[in-house]
């Protein structure tokens, strides 16, 4: 904000202020209070200043000016200036959000590209490719909604499991029995785990416990109460057909190994137990926040 007397406005001062005004950022309209002598040519000065000083908010007072009047003029000019700063903050926040959005969209597209590339790699038919790919995209979309509804940064593990595994119900009964304490996961950890559960569940439906009506999955998790707690997640299948170790690791097994190793820093244990597949992952919870 600037307070100036009209006598001070020589050509050099006029042009220095004009330059400053032109260089202002978009949100700014600087308040300028001009104190005019009673004998000064008011109309001419106003006309000239509004021409020379673009993007300024000019307020004129005739001298002598009552201190109360000047004070209230200054206050309203300051308030206007504060509102401009608010606008500036909003603009900066929006630029930051757009950058973040761009980053996330790029990241999602990269994820989808990777899912497609890997699904294609292990596909044996076009129908199989289409089913597997859309199933994986759906799992990604479901966990995205869970995270968004939870505020965008963290998500509850039970919620991720509930949504990812909800298609796997028989006669209204949960075939995947999930049990564990409330745990808030970071956005990325939640996404990775959801995709792992999706792979485990679809595998169980095709070849494992969920391919038989009496088959069940016990999905449990726990945290140790140490200073750097360890999270353990166990997926234990039972009641399905006898399990044999596949000759070649498919997408699901490979993804779960790679993703959980990356997430926890330790590879998961995947055991092709004859009575049902076991997948046990454990690692420092601090990595999942």
């Amino acid at each position: 904000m600037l307070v100036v007397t009209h006598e001070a406005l020589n050509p050099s001062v006029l042009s220095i202020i004009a330059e400053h005004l032109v260089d202002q950022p978009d949100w700014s309209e600087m308040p300028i209070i001009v104190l005019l002598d009673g004998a000064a040519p008011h109309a001419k000065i106003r006309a000239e200043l509004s021409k020379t000083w673009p993007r300024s908010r000019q307020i004129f007072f005739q001298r002598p000016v009552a201190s109360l009047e000047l004070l209230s003029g200054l206050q309203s000019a300051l308030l206007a200036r504060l509102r401009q700063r608010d606008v500036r903050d909003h603009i900066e926040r929006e630029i930051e959000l757009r950058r973040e959005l761009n980053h996330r969209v790029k990241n999602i597209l990269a994820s989808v590209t990777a899912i497609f590339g890997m699904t294609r790699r292990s596909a044996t038919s076009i129908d199989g490719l289409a089913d597997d790919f859309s199933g994986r995209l759906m799992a990604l979309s479901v966990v995205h909604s869970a995270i968004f509804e939870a505020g965008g940064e963290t998500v509850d593990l039970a919620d991720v499991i509930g949504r990812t595994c909800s298609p796997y119900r028989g006669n209204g009964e949960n075939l995947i029995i999930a049990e564990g304490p409330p745990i808030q996961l970071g956005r990325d950890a939640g996404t990775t785990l959801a995709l792992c559960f999706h792979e485990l569940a679809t595998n169980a439906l095709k070849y494992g416990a969920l391919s038989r009506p009496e088959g069940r999955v016990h999905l449990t998790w726990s945290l140790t109460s140490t200073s750097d707690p360890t999270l353990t997640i166990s997926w234990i299948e039972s009641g399905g057909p006898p399990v044999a170790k596949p000759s070649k690791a498919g997408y699901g097994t490979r993804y779960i190994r790679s993703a959980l190793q990356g997430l926890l820093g330790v590879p998961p244990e995947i055991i092709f137990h004859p009575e049902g597949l076991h997948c046990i992952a454990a690692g420092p919870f601090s990595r999942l926040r």
Partner: protein
Amino acid sequence: MRSPLAPLRIFYLEDNPLIVFHIESMIEDLGHIFAGSASSFAELKMKFDTFQIDGALVDIDLADGRTGPLAAAWLQERGVASIFVTGQTEVAAEHAAVALGTIAKPVPVEVLGEKLELLRKHVKSFG
């Protein structure tokens, strides 16, 4: 497609596990060895001594921020050459001194195969 020469041990610094998963398979398809991955510069520093690495693929934006160029410089000081793998090729270009090259995402397997051969000349054990 497979490299006719000795396999290289490739480390991958990337924070998106799906991309790690995809590139890991490509590295193996090309006849090389996937030596491991880390999602941040901090994790790389912590894990570095436990890995045997001939060369590294490095993303620009990692879990601890825009630390890819720092990580590549850090690896260079330890005699490990890097190649940037990123959607931000203009940022990679600003840090060209710390990497042998850049691969734009998404990564075609042929391009990956070609660029990995660049690393071979810089592997310590090959002189």
